[in-house]
């Protein structure tokens, strides 16, 4: 087996693109799978099964579309975008987290978090799920991924001013949603 551990991301993806090189692909998986898992987990809280799907699908797409990759930006940015888009697809389906339907014998981090989660968090997540897609994607990118306005603008391909305006609208919506459910 050739040693690919010292190759750069660009070299590895080029090899995947040219010959579907499994060793190169495996190395990219080794480098980025944990990061993409963390990333998808943040975008899809309490949806363990969906996170698995997103991570798998991200790498399958990377493998299939390796030829479409252009080394103008970072490889990681390209991979994150794939994961982000797939996560947004999951959000659009609005499925009930499968973890909640487990048998009583099952204990999972999701059940724990559901049980102990701060009520504010529960309401906030419900409100975020209820946001229109264009607003939700900005909140997730800005707050949970931690992008700056210019980064989010470029990542989401939304003009900067539009993005700021939408972000403000999203926060207003979330603020109202939290206020409506609060007793005190």
């Amino acid at each position, binding site marked *: 087996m050739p040693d690919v551990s010292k190759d750069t991301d660009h070299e590895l993806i080029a090899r995947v693109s040219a010959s579907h090189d499994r060793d190169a692909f*495996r190395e990219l998986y080794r480098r980025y799978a944990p990061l993409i898992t963390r990333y998808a987990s943040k975008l899809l809280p309490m949806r363990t099964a969906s996170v698995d799907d997103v991570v798998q699908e991200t790498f399958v797409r990377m493998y299939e579309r390796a030829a479409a990759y252009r080394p103008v930006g970072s490889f990681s940015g390209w991979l994150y975008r794939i994961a982000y888009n797939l996560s947004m697809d999951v959000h659009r389906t609005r499925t009930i987290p499968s973890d909640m339907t487990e048998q*009583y*014998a099952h204990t999972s981090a999701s059940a724990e978090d559901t049980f102990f989660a701060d009520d504010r*968090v529960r309401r906030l997540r419900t409100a975020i799920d209820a946001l229109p897609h264009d607003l939700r994607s900005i909140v997730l990118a800005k*707050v949970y991924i931690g992008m700056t306005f210019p980064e989010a603008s470029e990542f989401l391909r939304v003009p900067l001013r539009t993005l700021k305006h939408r972000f403000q609208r999203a926060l207003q919506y979330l603020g109202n949603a939290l206020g409506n459910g609060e007793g005190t």
Partner: protein
Amino acid sequence: MKKDVIDSETEAMLRDGGIPNAKRLRDALLADMELRDREANAAQTPAYETIETRITTQRVRFPVIWCVGLASAAAILIAVIGIAFMPRAHTILAAGDIVVNGKAHRPGVPIIGSWSAAVARSAVFSYDSMALIHAAADTAMHIAPSAGTRKLRITVTRGMVSAYVRPGTECIILTKGQYPLTMHIHGTTFSVDVREARAVTVAVAEGGMLVQPSDASMPGIRIRPGEQYRFAGGGHTASAISRTLSSTMAFLSYSRGDIDRHEAPIFVPKEASLIDNAGSRVDGPVWVRGMRRSLYAVTGSTLPKRLDSVSDTTLLTAVRAPVRVRGLTNAIRFAPSVSGDDAVVCDEHRLSLIKNGTLRWSTDIPRAVIYAPLITRSSVIVLMRGEAITLHVYDRLTGRSTASIPTRLTRPFPAAAFENTVIIADASGEYLSYDIARRSAVPGRIPEEIVTAPTADSTGAIVCGRTGIYAVGIKTIRIATAPGSIIMPAVSYRGNIALGLADGSAAIIDRTNGTCIRRLMPYRMERIVLVGDEPYAVSGGWIASMVSGVVTRLPGTYIGIEDGIVLVRDQSSLLWYSLAARAIIARVSPGLSMDHISKTQNGALIGSMHEVYVLK
């Protein structure tokens, strides 16, 4: 990417952007960020083999589609030109072909090296000289040999695989279901079916195999020829049970995932056998519907023994049954109290102690008892209502009245005991500390109304006012001020105190300095109970450790808990559910409406009129 704080741009937007409830939103965002960060840290990265298999499968689709198209075209050409003149098209898949790493292989062709396979149609092929493998249609798997050994590792992600493994070869099968299993196989014929998402069926035709649950520390299951096992939700449960038992277990009977349908596993120690009611020997592991001590006996000798005489306490822990208490003729009040083998019940006129299911003593009581009796090491203590509340003490051994102490209390809570002292707290703020050995009572008071029953640990008792938390005993010490209104009894553990507050939250207070060290929002928490030395939040059909965070869904509605065994009820039955084993260990259907069940804090016993069950 990691973020622990809200960035300055968002802060500015929250501050100056006219956002309603901005502070509340900011707090919620911060809490959510922290929680998501925790979830992300705990997330498991999918296994690489799964991805590789998927890639292979993806790549297979195109050849398959093209091949089917080509095959159709070829068939037409054959019809037109005539088969005799048609050259053989080796690139077209035929029935039985498989695709390995994107290349078609003929059945029976030996394949060497690590590879992933996506089987378009049912196929038989051989792996070097180590195994003959049959893969059903639409199977995806990955096979890898261990270098320099005769070990074969097969990961089946979808479909059905059966194989003959040549003697001398060790074949390890991994499945990627909800309950992953590793199967170590030596020279045998077996099949593994992973068509269902959360169930794996394993069947053995000859030889034998050992199935090891995903947790390598657990004992495996030996499957013998002709047996078929199906691993589903119950597998998980049964695995957990096995952890609590002796490591000498050789056979483990799974409950087919139907724990909630009364089935439970029977465990047979190594070199033991099962004896049924008729005294006949039952070979091998069995699936048992219901757990009754009289149903099966276990013996390690040649003579059959009934289970009652088996001294293996580990086994008895697993096999327990509810026993109906005899000798009760009047309708009892409250749920009985239990301590060791003793159960104390009271009706309108009498107080009775039952030992091992037999009435030991019964004594007249002058007035109605207002709470379930309290059992201490040497005494039985009851509160009786008169013009004021009177504390009556009875000798636990004989039932003789040893003390009767009138109090000024009018609205007492159930009493709590620690060492030789009993604490009775009154809503007025007054409490009574009764020393059993000296037979003397000392009154005390906290400077506010008491709102919950006192709770005791080994060092003393805790009473709570609306917000004040006090340690009481010889003297009263204010420990802390709660961060909200206290509404349920506090639980003291490992130098901390767990509280339930009116806003639905729970607070953990450091007893040494009185500070709140943690706030939790358990989902619809109804009470906090102590299990071992951990506080648990109880919420209807759920119970969750407030320390480890492990949440357990109960098979019914919570009634009470003692020694880690939760008493729950469903529509027709009482169930005893072991938290450690994560399984129902006993069940009884009294034939009465479950609405008549008295609730109790010690869940080992339940009273419904004069029908009382003790878990033995």
